[in-house]
């Protein structure tokens, strides 16, 4: 039993970890693009801004369980399988990207406009404003945002378990629920709670360390 729980925990960490990194890789640039192309920001491009916003909203409005099955052909085409942890990473990432983009947007919009304008007045280019002003100034907010995405990914990963994705969610459903193993159900729940707690506290600690405001 303990070996199963350990194995499932590793699977969850793997799915969430990879999905988090991939969604950050795509979601953070998208969030930045979304912000800077907005009206009255440093690079207003209304068409790009609006289309991006629509796409992100569509992604955000699909319930994860629907997205999971809806993109099975895409998943299969991309990684060759739609089951197992690798198969679960694709829908997890796809659903986390728009979430990440919105979280990044919120964090970047918190940056004091006066500071951005000061950088413009000093002759900073758009790229310099992004890398030297927007991102560094938004770091505490970005860390908290990524933490939030990580926590949601843990809960999504449990759903992925329902379609054979592996991980703690899978274990809890198959053993805890279908085979009436109350002890496994309890331990999985405790492990999940511990995971969320530690991610949240770590994120909070890191954000406050990086905050000089």
């Amino acid at each position: 039993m303990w070996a199963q729980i350990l194995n499932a925990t590793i699977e969850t960490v793997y799915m969430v970890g990879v999905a988090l990194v991939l969604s950050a890789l795509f979601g953070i640039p998208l969030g930045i693009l979304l912000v800077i192309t907005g009206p009255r920001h440093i690079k207003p491009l209304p068409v790009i801004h609006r289309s991006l916003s629509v796409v992100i909203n569509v992604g955000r409005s699909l319930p994860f369980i629907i997205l999971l099955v809806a993109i099975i052909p895409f998943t299969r085409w991309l990684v060759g399988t739609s089951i197992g942890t690798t198969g679960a990473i694709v829908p997890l990432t796809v659903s986390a990207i728009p979430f990440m983009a919105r979280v990044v947007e919120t964090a970047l919009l918190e940056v004091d406009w006066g500071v951005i304008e000061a950088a413009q007045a000093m002759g900073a280019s758009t790229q310099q404003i992004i890398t030297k002003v927007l991102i560094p100034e938004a770091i505490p907010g970005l860390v908290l945002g990524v933490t939030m995405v990580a926590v949601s990914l843990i809960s999504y990963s449990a759903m992925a378990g329902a379609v054979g994705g592996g991980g703690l969610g899978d274990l809890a459903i198959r053993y805890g629920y279908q085979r009436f193993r109350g002890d496994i159900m309890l331990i999985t729940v405790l492990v999940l709670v511990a995971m969320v707690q530690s991610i949240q506290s770590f994120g909070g600690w890191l954000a406050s360390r990086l905050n000089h405001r």
Partner: protein
Amino acid sequence: MSTVMIELEKVTKIYGQGDKRVVALADVSLQIKKGEIFGIIGLSGAGKSTLIRCINKLEEPQAGTIRLAGQEITNLQGKELRAARRKIGMIFQHFNLLSSRTVFRNVAFPLEISGVKPKEREERVRSLLDLVGLADKINAYPSELSGGQKQRVGIARALASNPEVLLCDEATSALDPDTTKSILRLLQDVNRRFGLTIVLITHQMEVIKEICDTVAVIDDGRIVEQGSVVELFARPRSAAARRFMKGVLHTEIPPEIQERMSAEGPRQQHGKTVRISFIGGMAGQPIISSVIRRFQVDVNILYANLDFIKNMPFGSLIVEITGDEANVARALADLTAQGLKLEVLAGVGPDS
């Protein structure tokens, strides 16, 4: 001193469209000389902020041209605009320092973006922090500084790229009076030391009085008056200028004296209560005692005030002149002839 540094020609800026159209600047023309401290005063919403932000094209006017050291700013784009902006320093009401950077890295920011080498950067930042008196705060974060210290960092940062012009956007409005004075002194110091042209906007006449050479009064998007500061204080022509002056020069009659005047009136038959305003050298002459001697009148000083505008004495007196009717009239005529500004506030007599 006499070459033109910044020239605005018929600059017009309109916000919004249709019913919501607001004219922020209407046909504004200004000439700012090299090396002077040029103040622009106006109430909030008068357009002064828009005006200063047009100079480095943070705002883009719809019409008109702005030239800086002969170069037209208004049609610059992209790379050229960024290069021109590096020659224009700017400080802000809310300082706008990067909260994620230490004092050192804030001042280094403009050098960093213009590609100055780290070693050179460090030397420059250290000398700038010495200049503004914050060498000991080099590793502090802005949140650990007071408002005055933050503005000093702002000034050091603005000077980092050796600008020819420094724009001050309400730079002292968020500071207490003492800190305001010390920041103004620092600005005056860098103006003299580097021959830096300073343009500042404010709603505080105190700031104009303290350091400006030339002033423009802006009201409702238009420049209603401009000239030397001394000239403005001596002879304000616009209603807007007079409104600003009231608070600073105490030209209002104090309520105690007003009460006294209405309660008693001049004590003698042929008395007059007069306000005498003077500027410059007159302050050093024994005007009152000479009037008393020459015209045999009594002069009772009710109120006196002396101020300095850029080292020029400026003041007003409220006096009660009593005596023989003809003598009082002659005394008043004599004072006027000496170039003093007289205003009869109360009194009985042939011309009251």
